[in-house]
């Protein structure tokens, strides 16, 4: 009889344990934060297929402009960094919705928001992915496994190759040719913000840390020194327009 009482007691403990799991841990308050990306060439808004002039006066018609952003984190006023759950986004000029990214962040005063421009090395070596990272998105190299972090394609009379095309497929995740760049955006002007307007300036691809003219290098589609140079350049393309 005693044994059955003990047995019943343990069953009760086990059952109540099951009931209470999942209720452990306090949930910190959170808020939505929307990032709205606008694509620019200098002072003008990018329109695919239209002719623009880049920083060197080279005329350019952009046909494709897309890039991965991932691994968001926020820094509070004391400098404490909170990583957000890992998520991957493909921002694509041909998909307006992809230019609005909703994040759930801790409901605290934020001084800085950071993310990776590109796809971290782990996802580059983990086989086939789905969602934004699906190889079918046209941002994956089949012959040299790995993601294209950012892509800018179009034509320019300055290009010396057939069809006057230019094509920048920037990728490579292995040291020392890792093209992933960390982007930090300052939001201290309104650290309780729920909306950020961010512009990405294509001019920075051509001239920022170094010079990269379409007339000199119209094509980049493998990991290497040129890809690193362009990645360094475009790592400066983002700026915060307004924070609400």
């Amino acid at each position: 009889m005693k044994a059955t009482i003990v047995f019943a007691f343990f069953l009760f403990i086990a059952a109540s344990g099951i009931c209470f799991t999942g209720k452990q841990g306090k949930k910190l308050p959170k808020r939505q934060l929307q990032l709205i990306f606008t694509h620019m060439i200098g002072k003008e808004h990018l329109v695919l297929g239209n002719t623009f002039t880049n920083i060197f006066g080279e005329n350019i018609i952009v046909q494709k402009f897309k890039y991965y952003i991932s691994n968001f984190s926020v820094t509070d006023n004391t400098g404490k960094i909170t990583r957000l759950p890992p998520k991957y986004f493909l921002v694509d000029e041909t998909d307006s919705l992809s230019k609005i990214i909703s994040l759930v962040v801790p409901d605290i005063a934020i001084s800085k928001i950071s993310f990776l421009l590109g796809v971290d090395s782990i996802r580059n070596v983990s086989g086939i992915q789905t969602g934004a990272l699906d190889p079918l998105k046209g941002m994956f190299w089949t012959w040299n496994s790995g993601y294209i972090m950012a892509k800018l394609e179009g034509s320019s009379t300055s290009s010396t190759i057939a069809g006057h095309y230019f094509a920048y497929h920037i990728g490579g995740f292995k040291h020392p040719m890792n093209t992933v760049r960390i982007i930090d955006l300052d939001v201290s002007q309104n650290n309780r913000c729920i909306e950020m307007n961010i512009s990405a300036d294509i001019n920075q691809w051509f001239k920022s840390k170094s010079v990269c003219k379409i007339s000199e290098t119209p094509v980049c589609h493998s990991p290497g020194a040129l890809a690193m140079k362009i990645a360094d350049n475009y790592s400066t393309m983002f700026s915060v327009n307004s924070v609400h």
Partner: protein
Amino acid sequence: MKFPGTILTTCCIIIIGTGWITIDNRYFRPTPVKFTVPKGWPKPVYDFSKNSLTAEGIALGRKLFYDGRLSRDGNFSCGSCHQQFGAFNTYDHNLSHGFNNSLTNRNAPGLFNLAWQREFMWDGGINHLDLQPMAPITAENEMAETIDNVISKLRTDAVYSKMFKAAFGDETINYMRMGKAMSQFLLQLVSSNSKYDKVMRGEATFILPEQLGYEIFQKKCAACHAEPFFTDFSYRNTGMTADPIGNDIGRMKITGNRNDSLKFRVPSLRNVAITFPYGHDGRFFSLSNVFEHYRKNMVADANTDSLVRKKLVLSNYEIGQLTAFLYALTDSAFLKDARFAAPGYDNKGKPPSDIHQ
């Protein structure tokens, strides 16, 4: 006397609760398949925890491997260039035939023991087995198709809907599932039953030329063609000059490093007797061509591997013994294993029926 009642009630609640939790999975019970590592071999490098082997997954992978719809014109399945009777190489072809009378750039290697291989292709450009099929499917001079098109073709076939459901729980057809199913089939291709393997397991003994060849092999070849895979999976420059038209720089294409110029993966020598022609571009039509290369014809450059830079000293006698040993690496059971044949050609383990009766 209240307690037995309490216990009974508690038990009932637990049983019902467990039933409730498992009810969702009641209709999806694929048959698990165990991956057997041959005795004495190291642990596979493929991560099976991300892609559990099931009979249904393997069957789907096998159907995909032999389906011509993976190519643009329907003519080229994976199996058309990876033929079982050639240990899944393109038998007796230096290069393979692709879409619209094209030729591949490199020799199709045999496919076996892929669970132990980290990187694929002669230059190691592909870092995961699941990703490998995408390269030949999309290459213009191979299957010349887009993955999008392949998936839409598969979606129109009710048999595939059924097979994807059986393997993955619902009828969704996507590239991740395709890749995983194909890997499940490819991982089955374990070749470990050559005479060499039987000797190592103590089930057979070498005849004298094989034994002498084995000893020469261990001295002069095994540094790169390491047992039990007969490759160390490294990339080496063995003094093969680049063809001026193809100008294939090998591993350097992937790493961008000049020191990797003309480096290619050390190929496995398992089943070597039937995987001729040899070399990354199939330039050696016979084993004797290969031996002549190493002892006479090679052109060393700054990147040529130090182990062969000064050429190999090989006498005609040694070549004879080595050949005898290399013939003992043929796994004839693997070449005829009905599990790996095109679906419908396996006769369910029975010998083929005599059509003349």
